């Protein structure tokens, strides 16, 4: 579901089929496709089919599945009192990713596109959080937020403000998690944009400047349209990444306090896997999968199509 190559135009299909028949391209095809295909099938397709089959059974994870329950698990998920919270939180993460993280990444990348050593240092600095393992990042921020020994209360003391225990507070926990998400991933999107910006021929910008086009207008009418492809991809990564958010939340809040900071995947883990209700978990994962597929299809129709034009 993360294959993002644009679909071939309908007219190209027969031509392409003929080309595959060609002996010359058949050999590399037979040589290079199987390893990827085997990995994809065993690690992606089969587990997916497996999860889908769990979802129709009442199953603890031990022994064979015998108790067929039809769509009961789906019903249980939809009527679960924390599922709504999880969906709402996941949508909130998508919104913040798109409305805060990406504009921030764009802004920074526009400032850091030039090739100078000082710029390189800053770029590396902004990219570092992305290279950090999610669990490590989560633990670091758990310490930052810790109300007893953390960095946040120390800052609060210094300026004379009583800081809340953000991770134990139903109101503050999601903003706190989202701050970490933005911090962790904006560098990645910044890099995508920088790569895009660097591929814009300097002559184009030069020419615009000579014509007296203002800086903002250059960004608005030249740079942004010319890196449209990068933007489309980064938006796509943001949405799918937000829907699959898991490993930052677990060390930070573990879905708490009182199950108020679950995302769809931590919900699946907590109420499906840890409770040994794998059918229930399977149902969540099937729904998440369908949501991802639907978003991908719509997104491709809307945006990748526009890019192809």
């Amino acid at each position, binding site marked *: 579901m993360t294959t993002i190559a644009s679909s071939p135009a309908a007219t190209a299909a027969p031509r392409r089929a003929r080309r595959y028949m060609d002996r010359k391209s058949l050999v590399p095809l037979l040589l290079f496709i199987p390893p990827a295909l085997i990995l994809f099938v065993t*690690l992606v397709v089969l587990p997916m089919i*497996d999860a889908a089959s769990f979802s129709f059974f009442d199953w*603890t994870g*031990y022994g064979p599945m015998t108790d067929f329950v039809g769509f009961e698990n789906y019903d249980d998920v939809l009527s679960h009192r924390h599922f709504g919270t999880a969906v709402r939180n996941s949508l909130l993460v998508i919104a913040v990713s798109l409305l805060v993280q990406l504009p921030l990444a764009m802004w920074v990348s526009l400032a850091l596109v030039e090739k100078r050593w000082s710029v390189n240092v800053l770029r590396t600095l902004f990219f570092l959080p992305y290279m950090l393992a999610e669990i490590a990042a989560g633990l670091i921020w758990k310490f930052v937020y810790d109300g007893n020994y953390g960095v946040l209360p120390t800052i609060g003391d210094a300026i004379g403000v009583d800081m809340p225990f953000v991770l*134990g507070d139903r109101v503050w926990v999601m903003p706190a998690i989202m701050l970490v998400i933005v911090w962790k991933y904006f560098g990645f999107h910044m890099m995508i944009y920088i790569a895009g910006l660097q591929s814009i021929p300097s002559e184009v910008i030069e020419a615009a400047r000579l014509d007296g086009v203002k800086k903002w207008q250059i960004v608005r009418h030249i740079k942004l349209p010319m890196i449209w492809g990068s933007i489309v991809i980064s938006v796509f990564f943001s949405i799918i990444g937000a829907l699959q958010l898991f490993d930052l939340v677990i060390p930070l809040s573990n879905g*708490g306090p009182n199950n108020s900071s679950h995302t769809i995947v931590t919900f699946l883990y907590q109420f499906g896997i840890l409770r040994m*209700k794998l059918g229930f978990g399977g149902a969540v994962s099937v729904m998440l999968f369908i949501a991802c597929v639907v978003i991908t299809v719509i997104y491709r129709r809307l945006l990748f199509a526009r890019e192809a034009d």
Partner: protein
Amino acid sequence: MKKLALAAMLSVAAIFPAAAQETIDWMHIASIPEEVALMEAAVAEYEAANPGIDINMQFLENEAFKAKLTTLLQSDAAPDIFYSWGGGVLTEQAAAGVLRPVEDLVDPAVAEALGSGGMSAFTRDGHVYGLPQQVSEVVLWYNKELFEEAGVDPASLETWDGFLAAVQTFKDAGITPLAVGAKDKWPAHFWWSKLVVRLAGQDAFEAARKGENGGFTAEPFVRAGEMFLELAALEPFQEGFLAASYGDASGYFGDGKAAMHLMGDWDYGAMKDNSASKEGIPDDQLGILPFPTIEGGAGDPSDTLGGINGWLFHRSAPDAAVDFMEWYTSAEVASRFGNAGFFIPIAEGAADEMTNPFKTQIAQSINNAHWHAIFFDQELGPQVGGVVNDISAELAGNALSAEEAAELVEEAAADIR
């Protein structure tokens, strides 16, 4: 992560090859370095006495252990011997056939020394799947220094009303009355469980389990929620308790920042290990209180809540694994841990030489108990137990009504009846 877990499950159907006779994989959750050192010494001793046997110790942290076990036991990487709290999880494991019945291998003398109560905790449908090693009890640990500072007499906490009054006195004195690690949820469930033990007692609990008298929506269970909320309304817990793990709360108490901590006897060591100084509260400042009694409660005042923990054998475990465990749970070895204050051994005579006054006192109270209730989140199994943990953390945070809490537990219990 998710995909990996699912991929791992694919290997479920794989047939287990007979494990090599020489190596025994032993998975434990002990994290206190001194305790692990004792375990390692025992392993070395056994290996020296039994040439050709290699015991491979594997460690998983408590929460990770619970999360991974289901998949692990059905994979090729399953340990031969692993830690268990018994209860509903053991029932599921036994029913699924991932365990090895060992009743024919266990020496009757060993079974007798471990006691019928302990053995039955690891027996299902006449099959013995493991050996008990230790008993534990949840008690109200308290800090004598803070009690003196606030002018609270420990004896006044004998009743629930006295307890609530003491909590208020601590609040007024600016001392945190209680530490709890509600992020992990199970520490909060001790409060609900202890209230249920006091209010419902064994008979009503067993009846509720079977769904009689409205199951878990029966009066004592709703009342337990109400009393928990009465306590929560006083805001007795440390600031940020909903974000605190068990380790955080244990350290908070160990650092002398909270007056009381409702926790198992293992907190004696953990409280030291989790404290900033690694020293914790000195023995002469530390005390144990029984859980307050409640007027009109159906429970026997001697009832305790805790566990009978031990070791289970995976179906691929070799005979030597049972032999090793017979020796390891025996009074000879288990008493070393008891004497060092890590846990209370169950083997006959093993606890006799314990010098730790707290452990001795707890061992006594378990012995005298009319009903030693097993941790509800283990006893009721992961599905119902998980909900009990959920509602307990929510009640502690005053985020749920007592009726709703009772209904949620009943809903989960009805689901598996």
